[in-house]
């Protein structure tokens, strides 16, 4: 049963990821990204990371993809730009694609990671342990994250204000 769910979700996520990459229309690409993230959240649930699945749906699907859609509509992009590859870009693309394929192949053929069977707890105990770690071992990173969010917010305000002033002065 778990194997069937895993296979279905993994195939679905890879198809949607290819949809993000290959879609000419950026709005369709954003929708594919949404579906791909939903599939990854399903995989999180299968890995018993319920809180992370919830946060992934909330932050990525709810906020990030919506923001992407807003910006796509704001900029009113022309889809269907044809792909023109310069020689250097072609060489770089071929080399990196070859490296990726070799790496994936190696991982598939001889990747035998040592691991025991998955250990699962109940949802409540896992949540308690999670928050305990967050407020003891990882207290400093949590505060650094808060500072990072503050800096990011200020940075966004400054970036959007400066361009506005220049447009006025032109």
């Amino acid at each position, binding site marked *: 049963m778990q194997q069937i769910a895993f296979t279905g979700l993994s195939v679905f996520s*890879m198809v949607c990821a290819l949809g993000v990459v290959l879609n000419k229309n950026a709005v369709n690409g954003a929708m594919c990204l949404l579906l791909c993230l939903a599939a990854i959240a399903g995989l999180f649930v299968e890995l018993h990371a319920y809180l992370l699945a919830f946060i992934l749906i909330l932050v990525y699907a709810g906020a990030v993809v919506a923001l992407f859609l807003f910006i796509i509509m704001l900029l009113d992009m022309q889809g269907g730009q044809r792909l023109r590859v310069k020689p250097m870009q072609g060489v770089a693309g071929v080399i990196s694609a070859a490296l990726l394929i070799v790496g994936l192949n190696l991982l598939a053929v001889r990747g035998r990671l040592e691991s025991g069977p998955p250990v699962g707890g109940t949802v409540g105990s896992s949540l308690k342990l999670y928050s305990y770690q*967050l407020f003891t071992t990882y207290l400093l990173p949590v505060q650094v994250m808060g500072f990072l969010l503050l800096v990011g917010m200020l940075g966004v305000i400054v970036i959007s204000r400066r361009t506005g002033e220049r447009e006025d002065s032109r």
Partner: protein
Amino acid sequence: MSPSLDAYVLLSAALFAIGFFGVLVRRNTLVIFMCLELMLAAATLALVAFSRFNNTEDGDVFVFFILTVAAAEVAVGLAIIVALFRRKQTIQVDHLDSLKH
């Protein structure tokens, strides 16, 4: 029968490779950005799988931080793209060559 750790890591690597491929071949800044998000999500999948199969919470906590950083990154990145569009009237990377030579 539940899927093995290898299966999760392989899926994560495949998703990462697809995202990387998108960053290489696409010419639209927004689509490149979406592919970057895809790569980040693939990395989080590997972390969660390692965390579950090794019976530890550290990977999960790291994913929490990665999601926070990704949210901040998207906000700043999209603001930069909008500012770039206002200045240059394009977001195709082929036309953004001010730093060349």
